[in-house]
């Protein structure tokens, strides 16, 4: 178990190094930052001076080392567009994105799992068939279109919910939350549904397929033969056996949700990291893009690590205990 965690941590470090390298390469790909920073009429001497002060005259690996060293300390430089430290910008935007992503993920699980179980247990009911067909729409409709439809219906026609922004937020230390005000809660509904729509349909179809598989197994038949109640059989025995693949997909989806938030945040003008990133791309604001890339990479790595650890919690067969084996 410990060896497994250490191995996974080392792998994670490797992944982060790779991501860091790609982020670092951005600086060189998008052109010479010196020419971006200085006015066109600057002299060659000025250029050399700036180059030296920024450490850009150093060999590539020294530059990469410095970049990594700074990145580990959370220092990604100054935003070219806003002229403020990137880490500060991201820290301001992070709560908005994480709150949105978490709400969408929880929403996806709370709706997706019961719908998956329902469609598996009541396979022949027309409601199941409607849900299944509906889920196909969810899988195939692009995110922004769903967002625009929702805005049209609930914000424009019905006028129930705001169409953009985060509403009123409350600051708790560095974290700003929208969960404490009615305005904030109302504002998160539409973007969370938009972002959670794909995970819902995915989780529902996955849970359904896994449930159907598990319901055919001998231990479910045996559980019925023992006279357990339907609830105990379906939720106690069957559902838990479907969880391992569901955890995997949900974990990957959580990463994808945070990354996909770019589109949803743009549609709803949600003041999160995704919106910041889109604006950075338009302005070729390299430090922000690089930092965003590293942060998303980091979130993916952490989520995957957590997923791997959850397997151990769910499936006893993975826990290596040699104490009790024996018998015949």
């Amino acid at each position, binding site marked *: 178990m410990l060896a497994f965690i250490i191995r996974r941590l080392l792998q994670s470090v490797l992944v982060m190094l790779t991501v860091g390298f790609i982020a670092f390469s951005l600086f060189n790909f998008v052109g010479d930052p010196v020419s971006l920073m200085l006015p066109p009429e600057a002299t060659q001497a000025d250029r050399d001076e700036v180059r030296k002060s920024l450490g850009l005259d150093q060999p590539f690996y020294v530059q990469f080392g410095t970049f990594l060293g700074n990145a580990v300390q959370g220092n990604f430089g100054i935003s070219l567009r806003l002229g403020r430290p990137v880490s500060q910008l991201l820290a301001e935007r992070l709560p908005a994105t994480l709150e949105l992503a978490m709400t969408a993920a929880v929403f996806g699980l709370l709706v997706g799992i019961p719908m998956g179980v329902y469609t598996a247990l009541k396979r022949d009911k027309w409601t199941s068939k409607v849900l299944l067909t509906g889920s196909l729409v969810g899988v195939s409709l692009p995110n922004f279109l769903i967002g625009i439809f929702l805005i049209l219906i609930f914000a424009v026609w019905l006028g129930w919910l705001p169409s953009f922004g985060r509403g009123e937020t409350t600051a708790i230390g560095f974290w700003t939350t929208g969960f404490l005000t009615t305005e904030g809660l109302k504002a998160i509904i539409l973007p969370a549904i938009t972002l959670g729509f794909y995970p819902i349909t995915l989780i529902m179809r996955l849970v359904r397929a896994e449930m159907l598989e598990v319901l055919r*197994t*001998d*231990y479910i*038949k*045996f*559980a*019925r*033969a*023992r*006279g*357990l*109640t*339907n609830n*105990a059989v379906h939720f*106690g*025995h069957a559902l*838990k*056996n479907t969880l391992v693949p569901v955890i995997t997909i949900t974990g990957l989806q959580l990463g994808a949700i945070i990354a996909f938030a770019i589109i949803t945040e743009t549609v709803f003008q949600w003041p999160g990291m995704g919106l910041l990133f889109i604006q950075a791309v338009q302005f070729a604001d390299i430090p922000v893009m690089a930092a965003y890339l590293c942060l998303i990479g980091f979130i993916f790595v952490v989520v995957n690590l957590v997923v791997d650890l959850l397997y151990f919690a*769910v*499936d*006893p*067969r993975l826990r290596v*205990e040699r104490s*009790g*084996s*024996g*018998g*015949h």
Partner: protein
Amino acid sequence: MTTPLLEVRNLRVQFPTRRGLLTAVDDVSLTIAPGEVLGVVGESGAGKSLTGAAIIGLLEPPGRIASGEILLNGRRIDNLSAEEFRKIRGREIGAIFQDPLTSLNPLYTIGRQITETILTHLNVTPDEAKQRAIDLLNEVGIPAADKRIDHYPHQFSGGMRQRVVISLALAAQPKLIIADEPTTALDVSIQAQIITLLKKLCREHGTSVMLVTHDMGVIAETADRVAVMYAGRIAEIGPVAEVIHHPQHPYTVGLMGAIPNLGEEVERLTQIDGSMPRLNAIPTGCAFNPRCTRKGEVGARCTTERPSLMNAGKTQAACWLYSEGAATNTTNTPQSVAA
């Protein structure tokens, strides 16, 4: 005669398919007395497992009981609601399935699975249920039961798991256990242990057993009576020693002739020509008639009219050879297999 614990009357199990109804169990009647072990043998597809599944109400759709009655202690159970039947399963009729490796949920400790069953059916506290689970595990011969109770199924060997499965089947003290091929998936050396254990426990608890298997050795060792099934019907039913040593139905005769006997020099084992008919092609009359070596003896009846169970020697056989008017009667029994 005492009232039977289980009585199955004219049970018929059918599967609707695209090409019409298939009758997998056809007009099966049998009884099991309290404490009795009834063996049910037959080839694959003879309908023996389905009969068991019908009795515990676990026929998988689209299979269904088309007609007939199942009575437990004189009370009809085949027409109960799903919820009523659930209360009978485990409490009054227990079940043991073929593969102990897959019968237990891998994600829960065996203790949890046993106490769960006890708590579902008996009115006891969780602590009492746990104590009872430990007692059960001791009883089925699991060493250090108080520690092993917290172990997961994968930490047990196949034989040990089947012991756990037996303890689960007995958890709520059912009066009848349907054991569907309980030893087929096990190592030969462990089969005997499990059969001995099952026999001992059922004798001690006074539990009746319907033992479904294709292994005549297991039947000979365990059962009091045996029913031989062929193409969804009972071909012969009677006391186990009679059926084995003095089989009456030509199919049973062939079946017994196909069993090798240690300590006896036999050049070739006899074999029954042909194979069991498919469910959509069961011949009229006696289902066994195309393969029967003696069908000429009683005229055309074998191919036109279906025989019901008739007294034949000390058993009952579904064969026209034993009808009242048949010329050849029990005096001229088919050659019995040497004892």
